[in-house]
């Protein structure tokens, strides 16, 4: 039996700082931790006492990658807490900027952070010398997604036009026409990236787990903005206001981010693969075709295929964004005043951020100030599942005769496949070190 130890400080090409610590003695795993070492950031604490409408603009600072997701979950939660009903125009604009964030985040992960693994290089810089066309395509796609966020949200990150009750700035028709033109042009670039991914070797690994996401019933929409909570083990929908029935947080000693379990499992997965597994029938036909071409079939239990699911979602988001822009151009955008609150109470909101389902809940006092906030972040929800995957994977790696270095790389690749956003995950309030 083998003994081996893996000690990665820090896992590279992810968002934030995390370590992998594994010790195997005589074939038995005696230590296995994905250590989140980034400092807690206490967002839930310092939002207390702030005015209700400030929450989206504070909460979006949790992350520079998924700031639109945080903004969207926050405005939905505040609207639930204040009785605000937004207009169809606001919903369309929110869906468009959320699509753009999925694109910019997925492109960043697939084409800058994950792809060096498949070319056996340490970063995107050497790839720029050996495969310049790939990197130029990546830069073009990323810039397009950033520009859509900028046009709709006023900035490419931390949007300033998105508020509870509506938008304070609207994209001009000529900007929408230009974005649509570039989205149409980007089909060719996505096809090139798909051809590339068709030939990369995704590691063989399967482990049954629970996949949790939003899902929309009653229409054909692939859930990013709307929906109830479902999972592969509990497909009956749960309303977002009851999210605590589906996600229970706990503090673990080795992580500055909380772990989360469901009523059905010690761990579960959220993100592109979970969305694909639950909602693949609602993907755009072009995305479905790509999934088939890449061999991605629901229910896929190989976490490495989260990358594949992200690429499939890029096709979906591109096509859905083109449809949304067409609708906006046909109907015309008009200035609308922000919808005012009817009352101040408590409300929860959820959205699918690029890395998975995201929950925000705010309790407001009678003056509209935040009395309590609760945020449950996708990466936090994935941490226990990553550790469970590592635990399941290690015996096979040992049996295969892999070197310590090869094992280390494979474990790092697994963590990266989840596209973890560690800075997001360390936002939390209560630390109860065991």
């Amino acid at each position, binding site marked *: 039996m083998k003994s081996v130890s893996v000690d990665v400080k820090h896992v590279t*090409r992810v*968002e934030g700082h995390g370590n992998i610590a594994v010790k195997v003695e005589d074939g038995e795993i005696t230590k296995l931790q994905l250590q989140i070492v980034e400092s807690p950031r206490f967002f839930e604490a310092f939002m207390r006492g702030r005015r209700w409408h400030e929450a989206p603009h504070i909460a979006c600072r949790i992350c520079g990658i998924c700031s639109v997701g945080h903004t969207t979950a926050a405005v939905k939660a505040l609207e639930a807490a204040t009785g605000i009903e937004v207009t169809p125009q606001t919903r369309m604009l929110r869906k468009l900027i959320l699509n753009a964030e999925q694109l910019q985040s997925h492109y960043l992960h697939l084409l*800058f*952070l994950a792809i060096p693994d498949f070319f056996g290089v340490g970063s995107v*810089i050497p790839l720029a010398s050996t495969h310049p066309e790939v990197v130029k395509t990546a*830069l073009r796609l990323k810039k397009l997604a950033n520009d859509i966020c900028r046009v709709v949200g006023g900035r490419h990150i*931390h949007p300033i036009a998105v508020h509870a009750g509506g938008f304070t700035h609207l994209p001009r028709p000529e900007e929408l026409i230009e974005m649509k033109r570039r989205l149409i042009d980007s089909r060719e670039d996505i096809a090139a990236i798909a051809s590339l991914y068709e030939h990369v070797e995704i590691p063989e690994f399967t482990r049954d787990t629970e996949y949790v996401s939003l899902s929309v019933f009653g229409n054909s929409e692939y859930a990013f903005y709307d929906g109830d909570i479902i999972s592969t083990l509990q497909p009956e929908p749960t309303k977002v206001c009851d999210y605590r029935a589906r996600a229970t947080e706990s503090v673990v000693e080795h992580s500055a981010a909380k772990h989360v379990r469901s009523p059905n499992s010690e761990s579960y997965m959220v993100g592109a693969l979970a969305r694909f597994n639950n909602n693949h029938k609602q993907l755009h036909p072009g995305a479905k075709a790509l999934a088939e071409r890449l061999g991605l079939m629901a229910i896929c239990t190989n976490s490495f295929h989260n990358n594949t699911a992200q690429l499939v979602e890029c096709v979906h988001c591109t096509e859905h964004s083109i449809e949304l822009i067409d609708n906006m151009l046909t109907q015309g955008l008009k200035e609308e005043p922000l919808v005012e609150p009817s009352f101040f109470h408590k409300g929860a909101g959820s959205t699918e951020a690029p890395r998975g389902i995201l929950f925000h809940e705010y309790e407001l006092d009678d003056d509209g100030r935040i009395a309590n906030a609760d945020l449950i972040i996708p990466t936090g929800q994935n941490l226990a599942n990553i550790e469970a995957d590592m635990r399941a994977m290690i015996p096979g790696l040992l049996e295969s005769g892999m070197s310590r270095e090869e094992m280390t790389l494979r474990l790092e690749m697994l963590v990266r496949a989840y596209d973890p956003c560690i800075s997001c995950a360390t936002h939390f309030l209560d630390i109860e070190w065991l």
Partner: protein
Amino acid sequence: MAAEPPVRIVGCGRWSMGDDQAGLAVADRLRHRAIPNVAVVGSEAPGTELPAGLGEAVELLVLIDAAVADERHPPGTSERIRDRGQLKLAATGPHRNTHSLNVDTGLRLAAALGTLPKDTWIYAIFGSNFDRCLELSPEVEAGIEPLTRRIEHEVRQWLATHASGWRTTDSHPGCCG
């Protein structure tokens, strides 16, 4: 589509991080100068946006970014960095995490792609407050206009000595911020 101007000016920084917005503020003023044959843009994500915006026609790239003041460089002063090694950014390449997708990453990617112009000028404007804040500190605010004028002057000089091969175009408004 309009021809790509031969000079590209990129102001870098974050509008919401105090003096870090200085590069963006200088670019904003330069954009309003409307210098012919010059595109001026601002970027809050230069790691990917800088190389994405560099086409083959760009012969001079001008970067403006904020830097941390020290004894030799008080807040509000600025300097043209002749040696990129002075930036001391090489240790934080893109191999670390997304937070290091910075100006240095953008320059290295452009160099690797072969699109980094031989003439690349980097101006640092020194600041003291890089906390979350929408305002520039008074010293840096006072340093914005002198640096804007200096860059305009030096770019116009460069244009005067390199102008022979171009069709004169109007200024390219780009987008700032």
